[in-house]
């Protein structure tokens, strides 16, 4: 079984804002496109135009419906990908050392040339974040676009994961969660970012920002002052005349 590196200072990861994610799947497809062309084997598709199409994706978006007891039902869009856990069970379970966590930035990767396709890591991952590629027979997972974020061939502003670069709503943030002063760590603090399934002891690096409270009762009186009817001797027209006469430019 494979050991984890000593805890590092830099912990690169994603912060995903569940209050903002509209569930558009842009991240899913940008990821598929980039990672089909880059890092390791392409993400293959089977029966692509057939009756039962399927393929490898490193990032998927699920939509869940929530029914509060005394409020209207809500839908939460939930993007799911590798959380680059500090205590990554997918690494420790790997019999060949193919699954590993980078010491310098904490990214969890699969060394495809050492992967025997046994699938143990996928079983060990409580998040379902790994997918065996049916064509290449190797385990595929989010690389945090390790081939983008340091890539000198990309303009500096593009050295960010493909999913983050493409997200139209800006619901995905990338940065160093090991640095307490980083912008995304501050976002986590401000918005109460949380770990997914902390009880599993995986210590995920990625964080999710919770949806803001919806369908709140108004924090102001609905009837007054905002909707207080104008009361004049002549009703609305009386109010109209009085208000108009106070506007600049009146005759007298």
């Amino acid at each position: 079984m494979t050991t984890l590196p000593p805890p590092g200072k830099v912990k690169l990861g994603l912060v995903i804002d569940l209050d903002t994610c509209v569930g558009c799947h842009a991240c899913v497809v940008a990821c598929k496109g980039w990672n089909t062309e880059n890092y390791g084997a392409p993400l293959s598709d089977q029966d692509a135009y057939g009756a039962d199409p399927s393929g490898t994706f490193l990032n998927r978006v699920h939509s869940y419906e929530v029914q509060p007891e005394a409020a209207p039902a809500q839908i939460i869009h939930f993007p799911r990908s590798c959380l680059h856990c500090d205590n990554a069970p997918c690494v420790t379970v790997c019999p060949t050392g193919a699954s590993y966590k980078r010491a310098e930035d904490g990214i969890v990767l699969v060394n495809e040339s050492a992967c025997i396709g046994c699938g143990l890591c996928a079983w060990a991952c409580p998040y379902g974040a790994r997918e065996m590629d049916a064509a290449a027979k190797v385990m595929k997972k989010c690389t945090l676009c390790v081939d983008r974020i340091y890539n000198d061939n990309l303009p500096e502003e593009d050295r960010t994961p493909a999913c983050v670069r493409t997200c139209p709503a800006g619901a995905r943030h990338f940065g160093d969660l090991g640095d307490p002063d980083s912008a995304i760590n501050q976002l986590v603090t401000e918005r109460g970012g949380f770990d997914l399934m902390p009880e599993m002891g995986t210590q995920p690096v990625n964080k999710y920002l919770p949806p803001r409270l919806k369908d709140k009762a108004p924090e102001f009186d609905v009837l007054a002052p905002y909707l207080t009817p104008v009361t004049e001797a002549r009703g609305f027209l009386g109010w109209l005349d009085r208000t108009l006469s106070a506007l600049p430019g009146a005759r007298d």
Partner: protein
Amino acid sequence: MTHHQPTLDLSPPVSDEIRQTTCYMCACRCGINVHLKAGKVAYIEGNRNHPINKGVLCAKGSAGIMQINAPSRLRAPMRRTGPRGSGQFEQISWDEALQTAVDWLKPVRDTAPEKLAFFTGRDQSQSFTSLWAQSYGTPNYAAHGGFCSVNMAAAGIYTMGGAFWEFGQPDWDLTKLFILFGVAEDHDSNPIKMGLGKLKGRGTKVIAVNPIRTGYNAVADDWYGITPGTDGLLILSLIHLLMQAGKIDLDYLRRFTNASCLVNEDPKSPQNGLLLRDEDGKPQVIDRATGKLAPWDGKGVDPDLSATWRHAGVTHRPVLHHMADRYLSDTYAPEAVADVTGIPAARIRQLAAEIARAFDDPVTLEREWTDFRGLTHKTMTGRPISFHAMRGISAHSNGFQTARALHTLQILLGAVETPGGMRFKPPYPKPATAHPKPNSKVTPGAPLGGPHLGYPHGPDDLCLREDGSPARIDKAFSWENPMSAHGLMHMVISNAHAGDPYRIDTLFLYMANMSWNSSMNTTGTMQMLTDADAEGNYVIPHIIYSDAYSSEMVAYADLILPDTTYLERHDCISLLDRPICEADAAADAIRWPVIQPDRNVRAFQSVLCDLGHRLNLPGFVNDDGTARYKDYADYITNHIRRPGIGPLAGWRMGENGLQDGRGTANQGQIDSYIANGGFWQAHVPGDAAYFKPWSNAYQAWAVKMGFYDSPQPYIFQLWCEPLRRFQLAAEGEGNRQPPDHLRARIAAAMDPLPIWYAPLSDARTDPDDFPTHALTQRPMAMYHSWGSQNAWLRQIHGQNPLYVPTDLWERHGFSEGDWATVTSPHGQITVPVAHMAALNPNTVWTWNAIGKRRGAWALDDNAPEATKGFLLNHLIHELLPPKGDGLRWANSDPITGQAAWFDLRVRIAKSDPREACLPDHPALGHPSHTDNSTAAHKP
């Protein structure tokens, strides 16, 4: 194993080359970077500099790479060999294909050009295709707006000279409250998501009004699950409450709207109910400085909002008094509308109070500007309330008046073209009066007098023949729907089949899937396309179709002109057409062949240039008889629409070199666009950024850019006179009179102030028998039919259940995996169901454009799109249920002709599970599309 890290190449080469063009995976026209490796497309991402998407890209856009290797791509021109609908074709040469088209089209043009019906679907070259149709001389041209969102567009233009999406946008940076009415998950795509992201980033409140709480509505902070078709009533109730509380911007209303204009109230006047006019025809206000009548636009005039004018025993009151009369009435009290809208009165008050609160928190920019009356304003102040709305309110038979009601609300708040409100995108604002009027007079062998589509201002502008019958095959601009600014594409096949108002010879369609998801009554439409007369000839004798893919419509055409994909051709996204501008910039863009087609296909627009030459159409041939344009790129560069104005506004040639907006043709123009990333933009000056309709600075800039040739300041039309002119005719005034059977409907529907009436089909459908509303929405990751052939996107949306709200679900005893029959007054379908709680309790819905006909789009005959995907279209008729008068009443808005898709009512019942949805049409034969390469593997 101890920790071991392999050495990685962290800077692999990304691609050999990036070519920047414009996306076409939906209608939003984002800029894309197409990465090529060894000449093949390797990756597509958003263009960071592009005004529309600023680098981001949606799922569809990124999946474009799978569109250009899709097996459904058509390979060569084809002629039908089997019966229509069989999908049996033979490949022919382009010469043969074009000669066939000429053999059909030439005699028609020489004798009766109206017998060509040329309609284009979701294309982005309407200013070009309409020019071709004008030159040909048929009155029967339109694009798809009539079955899309013409209510939204027309109500916006008539009311305030612009609408949502391509015409205007919320002031995302300054708004303090954003309310979304009837917006599914598209239109527009990335800009709305980017805007919502901005609002979420600073915690600005988002409120959604929609029967369905998905997508944008799911992230909204508050949700009003309204009953479909009642948005207008809710809005009028909000107006009631806000007027009652004095939360309306009086200074804005008196200066910038016709609220201050006096209405002619003389019952004996032929102008009764129109605005009172002076001898120059100018609407009159009372000037506060003099207390006397003055023209609305007089220099220094200070319009009064309340003063009346008494003359010859009649008191003429300003528009605002009429509005007070109407909207302060108890008819619109929250308690009176709660049951119909499904929104409790307390919640309506809450929504109004949210608006009032933002109204009381104005935004002021320290920017001086001068209005058209010459008054200089030290600052720019606005009420930071913004709205967006689309098909949810538009696709109803009361959609025009509902959209008018929404714009009226915005205007009463002073939240249009002001900081924090809604902002127009150049070349809008532009008043309805600055648009053309529709042309329909046919002369065999000669062009039409002008554009087909436009904005009528009264009965004189209708497109009628001498006997008073509709001049157009879709009956646009007739008494049935006088202000149908985008035509009625959904009625073309039905009317042509019925010979009402006449029969046609050739139906010529581009990118319009009329035998499937773009028609109401899909099964009936297939029948109409295949029906023969007594002699065995098809009732619609010839059908020519151009598409890039083997859509369902291909099988129903006689001649196929295969188009290229969007990465293989030139296009221009023109200011003459549907521009890509932003509130702060005028912009246009191109597409160019970033790859070359590997099939015997041609860009449709280039084919039209060729056909124009072969048919000898004016404007498409030179004096020596040679072709005017060798292809579409040549047209884009060299066409001159009016002096100095061409399809593209960037890099035109001036006396001193290149310039923006106006200028002569520049042979290097397309190269300049390519060098600039595929687009051009010119920024609106800061003192012209708001108050555009009234700002001298904006008007001068607009003239300089060539949007119009002289300043066009105008005021918003709360009182919409064109409506009143049709109403006057219905009351018997004037020489051009509607047929008697339409009088009452015109008089009722065409009210000059916004009204609400129940969807028209409700009157002919027993609500007890059909108690449930049925809607469709387009998913964010799929657009129309194109997504289903896309190997990646179909893995996200490959089937569509009917979503059923909790109460109905429990009442019918449904459980997961169940199926249901869904019955409307018109038809029945049997489909899978799924439970959804975040839904109006009387509404069921499904995703549209996922369901496919077996055999279409080069998918397996048993593809889930065909077996577990379905269309609600089968339940919707293009006509209202007959009422025994022998007349064909269109299922459309009586003002604009907008297809009333969302008026649908159904009942549902549990059924036995099935292998495939009903109706289950037999598989289409596979036309000769590209060989199927089943492994998408690596593009």
